[in-house]
């Protein structure tokens, strides 16, 4: 932009729009898509401040100020949803990155090419399949009558566990399933970063008599730091957003588990689909959007101050 301006006279907006009309037209379908499906519904967030009913419409329904939010705060639901959403994400981020780095380091040690290829193919597979199939897997493993876990417990002489009504088990189950699904695929980025390390560094370390552990500690891990920071920032920005498909297909509408499994997305979906409650769900959604937006901005601002190159924008 600036490069053009210094060499030529500043052109009017209309003139430059006319000059790039073909490129503008090429963007038009995508722009129209986001106008219709992302921007147009935004004014509808006004519902959060009304007592919405279909007959009066979004802007005709009675205005109630912040009452919907008051209700959410007083009932403790907003706190529960925020806590669950953030805690799950923190667990996913911390454990996920540790496992991904560990897996990438171990994959780098594998010398048999076919062994590496086949094991990687298998490990990416869970990320490829539909989340509905994960619900099938959960049914296969956890159901009370025929689940594989309970049949194993019974076969070894124990009493079957009512997994679908024991809320305390589910944080472990959900984190384990998330790790099962994403560790293999997530390790690709770290693996690529390790492959990019200058081989002479490893040779130098070996000549200096570094042990395998020292090689990891002083060569590999420092080289992974930039990748780690970028991925961490991406996930920090999304910390208010849960993986709806995973939670819904594992837990669904099972109220006995909500205390430990309900996240913002599942609560909003349930309010809309089963309770026809548009006001509270819009209020929760708006809270999530604004809070999430502020988090991305803050994270980006911090990273920008640390190192401009890593910033998102």
């Amino acid at each position, binding site marked *: 932009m600036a490069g053009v301006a210094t060499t030529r006279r500043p052109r009017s907006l209309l003139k430059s729009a006319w000059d790039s009309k073909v490129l503008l037209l090429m*963007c038009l379908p*995508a722009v129209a898509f986001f106008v219709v499906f992302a921007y147009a519904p935004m004014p509808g967030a006004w519902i959060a401040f009304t007592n919405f009913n279909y007959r009066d419409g979004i802007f005709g329904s009675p205005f109630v100020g912040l009452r919907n939010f008051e209700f959410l705060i007083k009932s403790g639901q907003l706190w529960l949803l925020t806590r669950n959403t953030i805690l799950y994400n923190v667990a996913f981020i911390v454990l996920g990155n540790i496992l991904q780095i560990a897996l990438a380091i171990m994959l780098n040690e594998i010398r048999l090419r076919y062994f590496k290829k086949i094991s990687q193919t298998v490990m990416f597979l869970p990320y490829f399949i539909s989340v509905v199939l994960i619900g099938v897997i959960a049914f296969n493993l956890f159901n009370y009558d025929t689940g594989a876990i309970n049949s194993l417990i019974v076969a070894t002489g124990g009493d079957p566990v009512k997994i679908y009504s024991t809320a305390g088990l589910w944080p472990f189950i959900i984190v384990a399933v998330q790790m099962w699904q994403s560790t293999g695929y997530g390790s690709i980025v770290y693996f690529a970063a390790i492959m990019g390390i200058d081989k002479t560094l490893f040779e130098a370390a070996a000549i200096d008599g570094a042990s395998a552990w020292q090689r990891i500690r002083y060569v590999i891990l420092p080289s992974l730091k930039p990748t780690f920071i970028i991925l961490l920032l991406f996930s920090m920005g999304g910390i208010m957003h849960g993986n709806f498909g995973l939670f819904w297909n594992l837990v669904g509408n099972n109220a006995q588990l909500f205390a430990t499994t309900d996240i913002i997305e599942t609560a909003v979906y349930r309010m809309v689909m089963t309770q026809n409650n548009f006001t509270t769900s819009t209020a929760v959604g708006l809270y999530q959007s604004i809070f999430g937006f502020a988090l991305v901005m803050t994270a980006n601002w911090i990273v920008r101050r640390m190192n401009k190159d890593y910033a998102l924008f």
Partner: protein
Amino acid sequence: MHSSETTAPGVVDVVTVVEGKKRRAKRNKQAKPRAVKLGASDYALRGISYVFVSLFAVFCLLPFVMIVSASFSAESEILRHGFGLFPRGFTMTAYEYIFKSPRQILGSYAVTVTMTVLGTAIGLFVISMTGFALYRKDFRFRNQISFFIYFTTLFSAGLAPTFIWVGSTLGLRGSYLAVFLQLLMTPWLIILMKNFMRTVPYEVIESGKVDGAGDFRIFAQLALPMMKPALATVGLFLAMGYWNEWYLSSLYLGSQVEFRPLQYHLYNIINTANALRNSVAGDNVTITNLPSNTLKMASAVVATAPVLLMYPFVQKYFVSGITVGAVKG
């Protein structure tokens, strides 16, 4: 000033990855790695690596094996012993039930295949056009349009307002269009495409301009043929989105359509007893003791088998999705 040019929003620099690869290849050609004596700790690490990688690979594969085994098991054996690793009382009964009245499953297949093929084709066309325009440094509005698209990942209207807007105001409730249209593109796929474009040398575009080709012609005849890996990767993610779709169907289609998209059909079979009966019995609802456990597993196999068969062939593009895009979608 130039930061907006070099770093697209939300993206790990693809150029460094690609250049890193090239440099590595060059280095490996030039100098053979000197044989370095391995110590005891190196052998230990290597041994541990083989063990853990094997274990994790098995762990990833196990659930699939269990589903397939269960689908070939006898219902009575499952009720007595529960699901296990191997088929008990091998039988094809569950599959016979599904294909005795295949109307439902074939209808679902038809819906999903149609949506996947059309959606991938149309989506690819629109995304590649947009990616091309946003990659053009001489495009006056590239930063504004990039931000306009990227902003939707930062802030969204939320489920309820979108649901009312698309379902009631646009009147798409009960229409396949509600699902089809909303899956056509994502900001992430457009950014991915734009990132991929950087592997097309800019001189190609300039030579086209010098020869007097219009922007669309440069795109269709010069850039597009060089973008095959990009098209394959973005196309794969689009196709996955359509094939795996169940969420929008649950919101906008519900029980208003006769044939649900495949994964939503499976979702209903797993979660509601009636869906299972209707899907295999059709009008003949006299069947009382359906082998429900094995039927669920067989339905899962039928709904997943095609993508599993394709997977080894498309895996390469699946991997480049994360190395080039590197945004957690």
